[in-house]
């Protein structure tokens, strides 16, 4: 399969749309669990947004599988290469896993999972409060992990874009520019 220097256009679009959605989702989630006044409004956003992220993550993984991403620069130290691969694997796992975990957790709690109007998702787990009691904190812990991973990802991307200037950052920017390190 031929390699291009950049992610394909759908990959770049999906990346930036999902970056916005996931960050919004993490902020909504962390605010929701302490809020009294806005709890209901935030929950009503959190559920459909989570499902949207799940669907987009599947589309994104299919696209990535059909259009492999560009190689990392050859002079990148081995540990950074390994860290990049491992962190991307984790990012994809959490993009899929957190919405599924949220869906499973609400199923175990016996909540109807309303998305909009009369649209209610079917449960994906039998109702069992003790299972919910396990899944609920797991959802929080993994969400914190995703936020931490996103911060590391952002820092690493900016290191590539501002310091190393090796074309890794620009391979994901929306406007394809010939960005050459001096």
């Amino acid at each position, binding site marked *: 399969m031929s390699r291009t220097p950049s992610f394909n256009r759908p990959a770049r679009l999906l990346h930036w749309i999902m970056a916005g959605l996931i960050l919004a989702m993490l*902020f909504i989630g962390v605010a929701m669990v302490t809020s009294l006044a806005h709890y209901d409004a935030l929950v009503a956003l959190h559920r459909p947004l989570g499902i949207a992220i799940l669907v987009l993550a599947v589309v994104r993984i299919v696209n990535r599988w059909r259009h492999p991403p560009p190689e990392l620069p050859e002079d990148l130290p081995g540990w950074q290469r390994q860290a990049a691969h491992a962190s991307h694997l984790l990012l994809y796992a959490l993009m899929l896993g957190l919405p599924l975990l949220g869906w499973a957790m609400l199923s175990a709690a016996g909540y109807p999972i*309303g998305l909009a109007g009369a649209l209610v998702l079917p449960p994906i787990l039998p109702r069992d409060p003790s299972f919910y009691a396990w899944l609920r904190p797991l959802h929080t812990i993994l969400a914190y992990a995703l936020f931490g991973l996103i911060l590391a990802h952002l820092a690493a991307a900016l290191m590539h874009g501002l310091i190393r*200037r090796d074309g890794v950052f620009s391979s994901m920017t929306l406007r394809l520019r010939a960005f050459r390190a001096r």
Partner: protein
Amino acid sequence: MPRLNDLAGAGPASNARAILLRLGAIGGLVAGLAGTFAYAGGWLSPGALTQARIVDHFERVNGPHPGFRRNHAKGLCLAGRFESSGQGERLSRASLFAAGHVTPVTGRIALAGGQPYAADASTTVRSLALRFHLPDGEEWRTGTNDIPVFPVRDPAAFDAQLRAAKPDPATGKPDPEALKAFFAAHPESAKAASLIKARTITSGFADDTFRSLNAFRLVARDGTTTPVRWAFVPEQAATAQSPAQGARPDTNFLFDDFAAAVRRASVRWHLVVTLGAPDDPTADATRPWPAERPSLNVGTVIVAETAAEADGNCRDVNFDPLVLPAGLAGSDDPLLSARSAAYAQSFTRRAGEPKAPSAVHDTPASGAGL
């Protein structure tokens, strides 16, 4: 400074000052994002009123009762159906209001307070929580109380009232000065308290009227919304509780009477929806609506069985007042979101705790499968 260039992975031509600046910018951005996250999560405002703090308060006042609801802890499960009269069809598109529609219902009667083993007392507020099982996974959950108005207007007043009513460790009773100060600061609560105190206490659950207290909205097929409050009004005539009845020594007399009544014949409540006028307060549950507001009898709740709380029945349901089908919506009442949040917190805490049997037992003859 080739060392810095190597460390950062920058090319040899970059100057050290520029690298440091850029590293600083990256660090600043990441720290800013982390700080905003901490702010959103409430870590930077430890004094704020949160759902955890409300539930913590109930736990402090009532002591630990693992596995039980933090409020309305003592209860009994029920099941039956809702038969629509068709009168609500015009105002709400929820399928349960369609003429002739029968919707399965499960639910719970309970006494307010976080003491699961408290003896039934005549002045304790009683509640009726219902869960209507609509087609395609939709549900309507509603928690109603037998008081005419709610004692407080918003979550902050709720918290203030809880703190004012906290028993003094020295006397075991609330400090009357603190309560006086609370009512002085919240005249709407003082008015509500006198309305609540003046209510007629009926002989039991079956002849009691239970009210939504909060306002909601009915949403019609064409999108028109109507502000409403609702009540479950007993079909049987209400009789005031006699002093002898209130002094009965059996600790579960209210629940036992209800279970016995259901065994004799189904117990029925009419779902009466009061239609608010545009000026009626929807964001203040301490204020009653004018008595002349029109109301609709939209159907009948028929309770056919009761069962003690057990695995998988009403014990494990969060009667979140904002679990609503399409055709019913919340209002601008600030208590609704707060109730939803606090109930979720209570549900999450008790979900993982070991369970003890409820003080309210049922006879094996009824509702084993509930």
